[in-house]
């Protein structure tokens, strides 16, 4: 590089000597990636998580509780049923809490061991894994798939392709159907599908999510991670030099080269070779098509397929495992042992994430545990400010909306306090149906001279039969 003699803010650098000019498009067409199948410890973990997440996702809407779907987000009725909980839109704070917990968990996991979410739990990874499995059953592994794609169209090729896309589409539709089943009772939905009487919106969303699953897991795959996912990009901001990432041990591996299995370590080291036999399997198994030996790249989703496959190669060569392994940049640079790296996990960043995460989780759980299963809104009548009632008493009128967030009919007793002698002149008993709500007009009376003219803060105390109570603030107006 050549720099101008005069230092300037913007310094265009002369191009390197050996660059040759080429004509290129503004867009890039990327080759299809054919990930080779892999088995090993990390792969088994991924499949365990595929099973765990998908059993929950596909199974949950079919469970029933209290004579209704156990988990149902009823948007039109604005009731959100989660097993024993009935949440209202007013409970949005719990969703906020859940999102904060999710974000903090992500920060924590990522700081400790990189993109664990991407590699094991992200739906994009999970569905791609399932779709790849289907592809493998129909078209064979990497080599057969490449051959099939390069070969001319034939009846056999067409049949295989049709079968693959048919299976993908079916799984996609089932996924879309299940997703909609969280918002519309799934048993009714199933009957409607069976009778071909699905409503226009339900059809749209089933097809939309079905297509999204088919398109993302079948066609887009790593393109989603590379170009569409914002989250993939900002996770690297949470890495530091003590974060465990999938790394190639350059010192041990280089230089690469083929050798006979019988060749002794001393012999190939003398030839300038390291432990990497340059078989290329780590590139072949990579779902994003990168070469991990070039170091950490933003495309790497930490799926560890390269670790699994390299370990099998090392086993075959009778070399020690772990040429590609989970390690930290510091660990590789300073040759830290596993125990030393684990000790560095307990660093301030990780401890702070953990502490905040536990605090927020405890606060959300505590507030869910202590929450009263009913809500009251107090609305003062605006039309009549105040009026004279019986025996010169001052009367204000309120409207109480009582919402029963339990699954049983409940009765409530209303009380009012804040001014000497203040009392409810209308009925103070309210009954509300299960998960129902009711507007109740309430007349509150004050003895003629109990308070001066003006506005006085008062409180409504609403007591459920089991003794749980709520306090709601209101204002009592006394006319001049």
């Amino acid at each position, binding site marked *: 590089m050549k720099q101008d003699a005069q230092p300037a803010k913007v310094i265009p650098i002369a*191009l390197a000597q050996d660059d040759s*000019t080429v004509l290129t498009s503004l867009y890039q067409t990327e080759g299809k990636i054919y990930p080779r199948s892999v088995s090993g410890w990390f792969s088994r973990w991924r499949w365990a998580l595929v099973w765990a997440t998908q059993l929950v996702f596909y199974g949950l809407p079919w469970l029933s509780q209290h004579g209704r779907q156990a988990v149902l987000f009823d948007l039109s009725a604005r009731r959100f049923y989660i097993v024993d909980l009935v949440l209202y839109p007013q409970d949005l704070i719990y969703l906020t809490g859940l999102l904060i917990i999710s974000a903090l968990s992500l920060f924590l996991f990522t700081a400790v061991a990189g993109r664990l979410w991407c590699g094991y739990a992200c739906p994009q990874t999970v569905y791609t894994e399932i779709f790849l499995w289907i592809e493998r059953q129909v078209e064979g592994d990497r080599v057969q798939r490449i051959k099939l794609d390069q070969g001319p169209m034939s009846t056999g090729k067409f049949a295989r392709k049709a079968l693959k896309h048919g299976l993908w589409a079916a799984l996609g539709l089932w996924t879309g159907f299940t997703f909609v089943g969280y918002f519309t009772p799934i048993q009714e939905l199933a009957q409607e599908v069976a009778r071909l009487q699905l409503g226009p919106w339900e059809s749209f969303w089933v097809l939309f999510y079905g297509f999204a699953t088919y398109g993302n897991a079948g066609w887009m795959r790593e*393109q989603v991670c590379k170009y569409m996912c914002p989250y993939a990009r900002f996770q690297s901001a949470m890495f530091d030099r003590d974060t465990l990432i999938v790394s190639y041990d350059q010192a041990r591996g280089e230089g690469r080269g083929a050798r006979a299995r019988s060749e002794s370590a001393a012999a190939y080291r003398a030839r300038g070779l390291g432990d990497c036999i340059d078989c290329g399997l780590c590139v072949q198994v990579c779902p994003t098509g990168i070469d991990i030996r070039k170091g950490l790249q933003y495309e790497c989703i930490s799926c560890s397929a390269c670790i699994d496959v390299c370990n099998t190669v090392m086993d075959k060569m009778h070399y020690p495992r772990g040429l590609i392994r989970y390690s930290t940049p510091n660990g590789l640079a300073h040759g830290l042992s596993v125990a030393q790296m684990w000790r560095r996990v307990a660093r301030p960043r990780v401890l702070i994430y953990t502490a905040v995460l536990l605090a927020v989780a405890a606060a959300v759980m505590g507030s869910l545990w202590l929450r009263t299963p009913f809500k009251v809104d107090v609305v003062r009548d605006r*039309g*009549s400010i105040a*009026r004279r009632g019986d025996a010169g008493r001052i009367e204000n009128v309120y409207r109480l909306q009582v919402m029963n967030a339990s699954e049983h009919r409940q009765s409530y007793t209303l009380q009012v306090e804040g001014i000497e002698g203040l009392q409810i002149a209308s009925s103070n008993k309210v*009954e509300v149906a299960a998960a129902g709500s009711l507007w109740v*007009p309430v007349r509150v009376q004050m003895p003629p001279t109990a308070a001066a003219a003006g506005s006085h803060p008062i409180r409504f105390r609403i007591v459920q039969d089991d003794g749980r109570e709520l306090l709601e603030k209101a204002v009592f107006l006394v006319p001049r």
Partner: protein
Amino acid sequence: MGDFFSEGWSWYVALVSVISVLACAVLLWLAGKARVSAKARADNTTGHVWDEDLREYNNPLPRWWMWLFIITVIFGLIYLALYPGLGAYEGMHKWSQQGQHQADARQMRESLAPMYAQFTAKPVADLAKDAQALAIGQRHFMNYCSQCHGSDARGGKGYPNLTQGASGWLGPLSGEHIVQTITQGRQGVMPAMGAAIGSEAAISDLAHYVMSLSGSPHNEIKAFGGKKYFAACAACHGNDGKGNKALGAPNLRDSYWLHGWGEEAIANIIKNGKTNVMPAQAAWLSQEQIHVLAAYVLSLSGGSTELTVQPAPAR
């Protein structure tokens, strides 16, 4: 379109929109075809370096991303053809917010029609004992009536209390009368009598006489003096002051004072009169809704003074 709009603006908006969309399409086409000369560099940077060590990577967009842009162009053109977006052009669907609202409202009315049909089959008086109808009526009352009459229907100064039973009504207490009042509204007029009665003292005396009719605290002497002026009131309120339901003239012998109690309030009404208006509700409530609402209002005077209606049985 307002008086100050010329049709030219509509064309202007439409042209700008269409030209912009087409320009985007042309730009995409040109960018897709373009071949730029670039240095093939081993480190995959463009060769530009700023501030000593900031390098720009050469990461071109994937080609499928261009198709997303093309899809938005196609979507935009189809949308502009179907829906109003190009100036004053209505779109092939003739969609409008008002039309959408009316269609939704019509659909809602149709879905509720069978329920209301079962209510309108009954006379208002019978419906006033139907828990489901009362629950619906109460919601209508909360939406349309409570602003003046209060959530508990006990009104306030100038706004009648609807819970006093037959004796408290200015007119006859019947379903038909309530339906008529809600549908057409009512106008209550007490003419200004100040000139006819005469002096302030005379009006004060008359006010005390009026108070004496209901047994309210009053000055005996003034009331005695005011009796002779009551002849001017008797045409509507009757010689005995019991009012006239056919005219809507209030009973002055009961304890209910719609426009305020006491000498000052009564003297004011005598002197200046009062025009009180109940607005007609027919413009926004259907016949069926008024029928159910009337049943609820009637139920307010039906013995029970408590207004909390039991909710309809859960479906």
